[in-house]
């Protein structure tokens, strides 16, 4: 569900002698990056023009493009051009039309009615109708998509009122419902292909049929995925592009080179490592933006297992928070990408409240709290020893682990680093077999969809990753999250979410480290790309290339 890579497999190829040679290599490569790239001629023309193929990167290669079955980051970016949801969202996370042209919500917050676009056709030429939406949301996604299941199981009924109108009736109010129609959260799939079949084994999964502005033409595994213009797209004259090609480039250095040389015009998410960003943003042919990730809104934190002493004591967790300089983490480890968080909710997510307990770095406060707990330093200055298992998702997370070890060491908390591979990490965290680890989760626009799951006690589920793996439990927090998820009045909801944020920032079930930002690099010739909260995962129907 997230785009996470292990650095190890790609490195297997490096030979034994590489290490010794690296020192010598370094000397010959030390010339600063003087990118001899010609700046694109100034462009006066701002009216969209038809034609051209956009080249981008997909990394790692997705296992499938059937978005209903797989929502890993790379799948979303490619399949977001093929499939569509009912809605998309602007930068402030307000709903915008996608397959639905308009929608209404009844005053009691129980009935959501969507008017669909006319003349929409599936890529195989069959007409799209409300029946497809009903099938997708009431049958298909309920079986194969856990995140969608959690949302649509709140529906009492899902009905097609006519061929172009769908009505969702909820059992009880759930105002976050309107945030749940983004393409990866609820992709609409063709009923005529999937109805009555074994969804996961359907042969059509290899040739995805969607309604989007681009169709799959060719997928050469290990090389590229080629999408071409959907000539029958229901919006007149759209899309502008003739096609989009996603290249599979497993080597990180080659990915930066592909952008530098202009071979690709777009990179996204973790295609480029944070340490490449300062250098790449000085290139004359590209622009950098960190917008377009508001919907995923990742939040990174120090995850603490409350089943282990003394980690169950909130004074200890606060001492950890005081010992860490989060600005250093943002500036030196993430090279300036991201924002220093205040509390559990990412500041771009709805109902974020900055008025919470915050923890400015202070070794004195940390030591005072540890003293208060009776954890006095021994002869070596060690008050307690904890095991930290950094998330094995590449260089940056390793650096973070090393920094945390030093930072906690300074207040007398000795850290033993444990290393593990991606599969081992997932297995150990899901089964609560860890003391402290680093982690990040997407927040999906609304606290009810992406924040509550980490802290409510009903979501303490052994063996399931991205749940309340810390074992944190506070009845007041459970109650507030529950009330807020059912509250129709936005003002009251804000109050409840503000209160829960205040409680959480004082209980400190995890130590929030970074509101992560991903870099999107776009060639200056690419226009209109990345305009919504789902950014590079959107349809790209109105993206065009300046000549």
């Amino acid at each position, binding site marked *: 569900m997230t785009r996470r890579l292990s650095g190890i497999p790609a490195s297997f190829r490096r030979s034994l002698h590489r*290490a010794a040679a690296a*020192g010598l290599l*370094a000397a010959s490569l*030390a010339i600063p990056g003087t990118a001899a790239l010609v700046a694109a001629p100034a462009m006066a023309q701002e009216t969209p023009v038809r034609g051209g193929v956009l080249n981008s990167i997909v990394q790692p290669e997705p296992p499938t493009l059937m978005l209903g079955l797989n929502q890993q980051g790379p799948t979303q970016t490619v399949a977001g051009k093929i499939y569509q949801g009912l809605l998309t969202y602007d930068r402030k996370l307000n709903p915008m039309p996608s397959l639905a042209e308009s929608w209404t919500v009844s005053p009691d917050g129980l009935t959501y009615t969507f008017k669909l676009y006319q003349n929409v056709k599936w890529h195989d030429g069959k007409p799209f109708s409300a029946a497809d939406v009903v099938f997708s949301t009431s049958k298909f996604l309920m079986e194969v998509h856990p995140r969608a299941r959690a949302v649509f199981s709140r529906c009492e009924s899902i009905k097609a009122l006519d061929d172009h109108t769908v009505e969702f009736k909820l059992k009880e109010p759930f105002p976050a419902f309107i945030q749940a129609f983004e393409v990866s959260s609820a992709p609409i799939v063709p009923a005529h292909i999937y109805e009555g079949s074994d969804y996961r084994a359907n042969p059509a999964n290899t040739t995805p049929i969607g309604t989007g502005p681009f169709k799959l033409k060719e997928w050469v595994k290990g090389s590229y995925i080629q999408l071409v213009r959907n000539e029958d797209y229901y919006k007149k004259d759209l899309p502008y592009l003739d096609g989009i090609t996603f290249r599979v480039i497993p080597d990180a250095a080659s990915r930066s080179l592909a952008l530098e040389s202009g071979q690709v015009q777009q990179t996204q998410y973790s295609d480029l490592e944070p340490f490449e960003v300062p250098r790449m943003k000085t290139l004359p042919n590209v622009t950098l933006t960190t917008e377009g990730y508001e919907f995923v809104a990742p939040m990174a934190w120090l995850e603490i297992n409350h089943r282990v002493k003394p980690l169950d004591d909130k004074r200890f967790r606060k001492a950890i928070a005081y010992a860490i300089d989060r600005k250093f983490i943002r500036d030196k480890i993430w090279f300036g990408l991201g924002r220093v968080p205040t509390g559990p909710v990412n500041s771009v997510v709805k109902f974020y409240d900055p008025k919470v307990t915050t923890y400015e770095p202070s070794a004195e406060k940390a030591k005072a709290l540890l003293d208060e707990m009776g954890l006095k330093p021994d002869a070596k200055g060690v008050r307690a020893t904890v095991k930290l298992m950094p998330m094995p998702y590449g260089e940056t997370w*390793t650096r973070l682990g*090393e920094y945390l*070890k*030093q930072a906690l*060491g300074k207040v007398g908390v000795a850290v033993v680093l444990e290393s593990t591979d991606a599969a081992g990490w997932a297995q150990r965290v899901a089964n609560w077999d860890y003391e402290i680890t680093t982690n990040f989760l997407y927040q999906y626009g609304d606290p009810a969809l992406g924040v509550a799951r980490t802290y409510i006690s009903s979501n303490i589920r052994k063996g399931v990753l991205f749940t309340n793996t810390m074992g944190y439990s506070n009845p007041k927090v459970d109650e507030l999250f529950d009330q807020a998820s059912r509250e129709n009045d936005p003002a009251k909801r804000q109050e409840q979410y503000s209160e829960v944020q205040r409680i959480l920032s004082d209980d400190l079930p995890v130590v929030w480290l970074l509101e992560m930002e991903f870099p999107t690099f776009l060639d200056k010739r690419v226009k209109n790309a990345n305009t919504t909260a789902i950014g590079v995962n959107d349809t790209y129907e109105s993206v065009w290339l300046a000549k």
Partner: protein
Amino acid sequence: MIKSDFWRAFVRNKGAVLGLVILIAIVVLAAFASVFFPGDPWEMATAPFQPPLSEDALLGSDMLGRDIASGIAHGARVSLLIGLTSTAAALAIGVTLGALAGFHGGKVDDAIMRFTELFQTIPNFVLAVVLVAIFTPSLTTIVAAIAIVSWPPLARLARAEFLSLRSREFVQAAITTGQSNTTIILRQILPNSLSPIIVSASLMVATAILLESSLSFLGLGDPNAMSWGYMIGAARTVIRQAWWMSVFPGLAIVLTVLALNLVGEGLNDALNPKLARSRG
């Protein structure tokens, strides 16, 4: 006088003397790392990305402001420790198996040699990576993994020596006088087959250091121990911004491995009986 003969033969090889000097310097650096560079090498001592010759960092600092020079000194400990202990372990396995195979011959020899070949068919480094990855990286597992992938050549060497020495008169005599097999192996044959084993062991220390560096470079080093391979691995990503982060640890590895190879060659000259005879 065997000893002065040995020394004379050794110093005749100028390269070997140079190697020995470098090696001694590295050993001193490792031994006195905490004196030259007190404190933790992981400590963020200065501003990040300081170039060499700056105030607090002679060889520059890395992306978190850690002193490269301190890392190299403390890393020397890890590299030498792993090089020596894993070679010792490989010697123990390799010489024991080789001695048994060479002394007993026949079916025992066949069995042990097939077992050895099994290890020789698997690429060294890949096996080491797999072992370390399975048993989670720590100093112990790294030493064990390196020993496990390094012993087969030693076993073959020891076997060859034992095979040829076994038919010599002094061994036959020892057998006739009723000495036990263990006594013959340990007191008659082993001392006479040591020369080539010492030479290859000295070269193996160099290989072990390279193996450890490569493992650390791939992120499979002990995360709590500063090592040269780790430093280069971490520096690789910022090589265009901070060349010094990879150049100096790289030089440390090159020098150490070179020194060990030179010393090994000197030992070979000094211990090889044929060369000694030709000097007459």
